[in-house]
């Protein structure tokens, strides 16, 4: 399909439509993959680029975590949203793809702190910022592009394929990391193997660029351009005019903020909770989340399609309500599966293993591994590392037996179902809220504030709430009944406010914009 001749969406064949969806989805999936591998490999990247004993490197590390994930994404939405409304969707999201792929590949090439010193963390931070900017511009472009091809009344279904990409991107990143780690071995992976997932990105991006280059500009934008109705100043039109700004605020407080916290709780906080509060070991915890993500992914399309028939609002708000009501019982059950105080140990089966290793500085490190086996098959390992020149280090890990493993998968799966309910219809919802001439700019900002800021801060705010509750419990024992559940108040509160605003102020019918 070539040419930029304006055509109506109704005239687009199914074959073309699925080419458009494939081109957009593959690129967006790769962008999410690129974005997530940085987070998933944070511990290794930290040891390679951000040594904790160097205060400047530590500051850059923290900035890389916060700035790129949260602050820069809305800026990317503004920069690339404006560009997309001025020059077109196709070229803008080609630029974001090149930026994302290039910066990810480059991270894989940067020598470690031990080789080039301060430049290493600085370069990583800069490239991470480029990643954040690119991500801020990508999603709005892809969603707008597909929606502007989709026939009237089917936008929910067709844009829901774009919605699968964030979850699939996380799944692919976990999969690539696990496969590389298992293939190369833990030591080689920590040494140089972690670079493989970053370097692999360039191949994926190259394929995606070739596919996207063959696509034409969106029919609605082409029509607008041929009629000379393209916005002269999308930022001023989007946020300087009350008629549009009020819809941006409604989208943020009535939908995307709640969607963002449900999304991050169901996927990232769940993983963090499994690893940190439940202490489930690395491979098993990633397997749990990966299986749940894969099993629930088709539901994005189911709920996206359903939203064309029964309305976007009812599905999104139902997802929020389910999260609000059930998060605490779900997380309580997750915790109880690994709560060793409720388990009975087979004391005779306990083993203790000691290993002695000579370190580079001449010191001797003793590693003591105590393995506890419980009656239901759960295995708990305490690994204590002691050396004369360093503080003793104790790490605990738990491996679940089959029954508990699948129950944990189910509990995460249920949360990802909520994610599919709030996230499946939201692209169509946002696209329909704004007119074509300023759509890219207007929809990108509330989406990235909702997801990047409200959602992205979920793990940090939740962890801070748990820490506060734990401290209170230490000061006055029993003052907080279940401190490990306190972190859930943040997503519950944000989703509750969003639910109330959504139910009162949003219309369940499709919003029809002036020029569509």
């Amino acid at each position, binding site marked *: 399909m070539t040419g930029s001749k304006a055509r109506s969406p109704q005239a687009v064949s199914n074959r073309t439509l699925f080419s458009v969806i494939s081109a957009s989805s593959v690129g967006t999936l790769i962008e999410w993959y690129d974005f997530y591998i940085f987070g998933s490999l944070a511990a290794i990247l930290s040891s390679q680029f951000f040594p904790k004993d160097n205060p400047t490197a530590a*500051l850059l590390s923290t900035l890389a975590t*916060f700035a790129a994930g949260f*602050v820069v994404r809305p800026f990317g939405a503004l920069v690339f949203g404006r560009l997309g409304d001025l020059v077109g969707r196709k070229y803008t999201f080609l630029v974001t793809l090149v930026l994302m792929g290039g910066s990810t590949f480059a991270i894989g090439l940067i020598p470690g702190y031990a080789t080039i010193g301060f430049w290493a963390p600085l370069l990583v931070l800069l490239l991470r910022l480029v990643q954040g900017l690119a991500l801020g511009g990508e999603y709005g472009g892809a969603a707008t592009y597909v929606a502007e091809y989709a026939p009237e009344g089917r936008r929910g279904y067709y844009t829901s394929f774009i919605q699968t990409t964030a979850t699939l991107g996380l799944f692919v990143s976990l999969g690539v990391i696990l496969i590389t780690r298992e293939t190369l071995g833990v030591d080689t992976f920590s040494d140089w193997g972690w670079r493989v997932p970053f370097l692999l990105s360039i191949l994926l991006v190259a394929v995606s660029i070739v596919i996207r280059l063959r696509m034409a500009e969106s029919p609605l934008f082409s029509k607008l351009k041929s009629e000379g109705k393209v916005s002269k100043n999308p930022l001023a039109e989007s946020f300087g005019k009350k008629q549009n700004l009020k819809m941006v*605020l409604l989208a943020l407080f009535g939908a995307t903020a709640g969607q963002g916290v449900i999304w991050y709780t169901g996927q990232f906080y769940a993983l963090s909770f499994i690893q940190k509060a439940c202490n489930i070991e690395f491979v098993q915890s990633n397997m749990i989340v990966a299986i749940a993500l894969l099993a629930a992914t088709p539901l994005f399309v189911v709920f996206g399609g359903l939203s064309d028939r029964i309305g976007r609002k009812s599905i999104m708000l139902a997802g929020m309500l389910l999260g609000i009501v059930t998060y605490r019982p779900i997380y309580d059950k997750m915790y109880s599966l690994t709560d060793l105080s409720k388990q009975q140990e087979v004391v005779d089966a306990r083993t203790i293993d000691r290993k002695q290793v000579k370190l580079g500085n001449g010191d001797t490190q003793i590693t003591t591994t105590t393995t506890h086996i419980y009656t239901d098959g759960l295995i708990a390992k305490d690994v204590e590392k002691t050396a004369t020149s360093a503080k003793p280090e104790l790490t605990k890990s738990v491996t679940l037996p089959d029954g508990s493993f699948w129950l944990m998968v189910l509990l995460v799966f249920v949360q990802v179902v909520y994610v599919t309910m709030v996230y499946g219809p939201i692209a169509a919802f946002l696209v329909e809220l704004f007119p074509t001439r300023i759509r890219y700019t207007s929809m990108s900002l509330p989406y990235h504030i909702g997801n990047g800021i409200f959602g992205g801060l979920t793990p*940090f705010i939740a962890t801070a709430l748990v820490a506060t509750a734990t401290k209170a419990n230490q000061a006055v024992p029993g003052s907080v009944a279940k401190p490990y559940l306190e972190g859930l108040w943040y997503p519950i509160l944000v989703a509750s406010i969003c639910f109330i605003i959504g139910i009162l102020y949003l*219309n369940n019918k499709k919003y029809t914009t002036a020029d569509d």
Partner: protein
Amino acid sequence: MTRVKFRYGQAVAWPIQEMELLKKYLGVVWILLGVYVGYDRITDSLTKIGSPQLEDRVFGWVVLLVLTPIVVGGLILFGKYALDGEYDS
């Protein structure tokens, strides 16, 4: 005689007039919520900024300079628009 109309798609079919009034007067709640969140987040983030932990300090600045202005400004403006009847159907 007052005619009672019902809105399509409402989870609970309320009479339109009462619904519009509720949406309007709740504007005050959103403005007050914005003010409260502003007070709460500013005091909390100032505590974090004073923390010896680097991560807490950066987190405090992010909350103070990014999250708080968006939530406070956004909720107050949203409340004002609601009060002005901008979201009437």
